[in-house]
């Protein structure tokens, strides 16, 4: 019963809040430093609400990547959310509007938090937990966006925050899969794309990686058979 209380839910989501405020403020600063205006930066957090994807979005906008590449990359970066939504499906609220809102706010962090609660609690807290996480992320972006405008004028090479964020996200990915094979495949894909189609580096790089991993899985299955 105590978990219906907002104060307890804030306490429960505090570790997520700490992470979201750090990453969200960084996103706001970086986005504004990259030339995206304050209100567009806040809009991104409000409608996208996905850390890694939002950082990539700054790259898409500033690098002038094609819409097709953006679409493909977005789906590929967000694919893991499909798995989360499958896992959480039994615990989503019965009300259809609440169900859609809850599913639309699923992230790596709130999924991990909800899934570690007892089964009977999951359905009761999921909407409020997801809403709190959304609130943390958007307010952090607002803080970062307003700070970023001044900071970008004061600090040289502030746009280097983007590679810094990507390297941290890569590190997090490495922690999950414990192999650096995708690094080599990605570097190879990047070099081939840079030489052959320098205008579509991201798209070509992603396609090369898809082909590689599909072929690798096929060969692995054939070897096992």
């Amino acid at each position, binding site marked *: 019963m105590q978990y219906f209380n907002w104060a307890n839910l804030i306490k429960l989501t505090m570790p997520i809040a700490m992470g979201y405020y*750090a*990453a969200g403020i*960084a996103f706001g600063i970086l986005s504004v430093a990259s030339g995206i205006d304050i209100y*567009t930066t806040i*809009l*991104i957090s409000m409608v*996208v609400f*996905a850390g890694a994807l939002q950082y*990539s*979005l700054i*790259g898409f*906008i500033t690098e002038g990547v094609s*819409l097709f590449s*953006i*679409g493909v990359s*977005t*789906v*590929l*970066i*967000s*694919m*893991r*959310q*499909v*798995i*989360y*939504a*499958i896992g959480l499906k039994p615990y989503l609220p019965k009300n259809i509007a609440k169900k*859609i809102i809850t*599913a*639309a706010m699923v992230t790596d962090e709130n999924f991990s938090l909800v899934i570690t609660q007892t089964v009977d609690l999951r359905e009761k807290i999921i909407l409020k937990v997801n809403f709190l996480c959304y609130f943390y992320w958007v307010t952090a972006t607002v803080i970062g966006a307003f700070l970023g405008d001044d900071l970008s004028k004061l*600090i*040289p*090479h*502030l746009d*280097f*925050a983007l*590679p*810094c*964020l*990507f*390297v*941290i*996200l*890569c*590190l997090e*990915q*490495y922690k999950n*899969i414990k192999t650096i094979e*995708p*690094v080599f*495949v990605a570097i190879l*894909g*990047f070099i081939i794309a840079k030489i052959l189609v320098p205008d579509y580096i991201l798209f070509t*790089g*992603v396609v090369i*990686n898809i082909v590689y*991993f*599909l072929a690798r899985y096929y060969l692995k*299955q054939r070897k096992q058979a």
Partner: protein
Amino acid sequence: MTEFFQQHSILVIIFIVAILNQVTRLLPLIISNRFLQNNYLLYMNKFLPFAILVILLISSLNWVKTFKLADLVAEVLALLIVVFSYIKLNNFLLSICLGIFSLNMIYLLF
């Protein structure tokens, strides 16, 4: 006028990304789990995000535009500092600040 179209295209990009992102979150509500748990899809889901992030990391480096060895060395050194600080401190914001500070120091000293 150009600025208007630039802002307009940024908004289009944001909404495309937002819609596709939400589709991946809402897809399991309408499509059967059996299709979504296809082994090829799961295998790609495991490795591809990492590979895409590496490509994005390389593309975001200034060195890719300048092709100067000095830029490459400075950025790689600063990124190594980010990696080690993140492993030790596990703090997103602090590691990013350290990365920017290190890059500025490297350019200042060498």
